[in-house]
């Protein structure tokens, strides 16, 4: 189990680096959503199901949506 969690954390870090470096904002937002999704799974393994639900619904779902709405109304390239 710990190996799987380590893998999740690594995916998180790599996705965060992608979000930090990507020139395309939509790309960065998707990477950021991936970070939240991985975090939500890690929360589940840390015995925090309530937080996992909240992070999956808010962090991975809703914030991605509002980011994309905002990018739609502004510009996509950095």
């Amino acid at each position, binding site marked *: 189990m710990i190996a799987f969690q380590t893998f999740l954390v690594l995916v998180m870090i790599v996705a965060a680096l992608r979000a930090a470096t990507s020139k395309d904002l939509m790309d960065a937002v998707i990477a950021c959503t991936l970070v939240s999704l991985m975090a939500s799974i890690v929360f589940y393994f840390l015995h925090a*199901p*309530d937080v*996992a*639900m*909240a992070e999956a*619904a*808010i962090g991975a*779902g*809703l914030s991605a*949506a*509002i980011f994309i*709405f*905002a990018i739609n*109304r502004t510009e996509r390239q950095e």
Partner: protein
Amino acid sequence: MRTVVSLTLIVIVAIGVIVSLSQVPVGAEAARQEGRLDQDGVNFGRYYNSRAVEETGATNVVASVVVSYRGLDTLGEVAVLFIAALGVVTLLGTKQERKAKREVEQASLIVFTGCRFLFPLILLFATYIFAHGHLTPGGGFQGGAVTASGFVLIYLGCRGRSVGPKQLSATESLSGLVFVMIGLVGLALGGSFLLNFLPRGTTYALFSAGVIPIIYVAIGLKVSSELGSIVGALAGEGE
């Protein structure tokens, strides 16, 4: 130049954090290994875990902490979301051009029908989540976020339809008032804000745990309407 300075700063912070984490036993696991958890003295987690069911009647300890023991935080947090909803609508809703709706491409028939089919199911699921918050994982915030994602679906799939901002605003106000009122009734009856003044009922039953489910439903409605108006304003469907 800016990059170099920032990176230096970040490296300094990183070293500080690593040094402190390796020397200082932070967290419940470290406390358990040192045997500090078994000592006397105040530890919120241990106290709540052992007393929550008896004192509040809710089997989900997180729910009893969120709504009862740390209820004032939750009131504050609902107020923060309320501020954000007000702020977003103030910032984005003041433009006059909102009336002249830009023509948007309609979504395809499959997407449209799918959204119309899914939306009630999503609402039903959200209601389940926040009505059972005191028994199973979930609660007002999670349920509210699920409802708001239903609204996102409507904005994406059924262009031109929107959730009425006035109805959202009224729901926001009323559910917030219910929360504050329950708190004040507790103050009037027992001298302490957010006192659980209703009978606890049978543990594991839906109608148990006194005021916790009522407050959680109020929070659920409030969070749904607030997130709904944030999403609506950002999607360009505001007033």
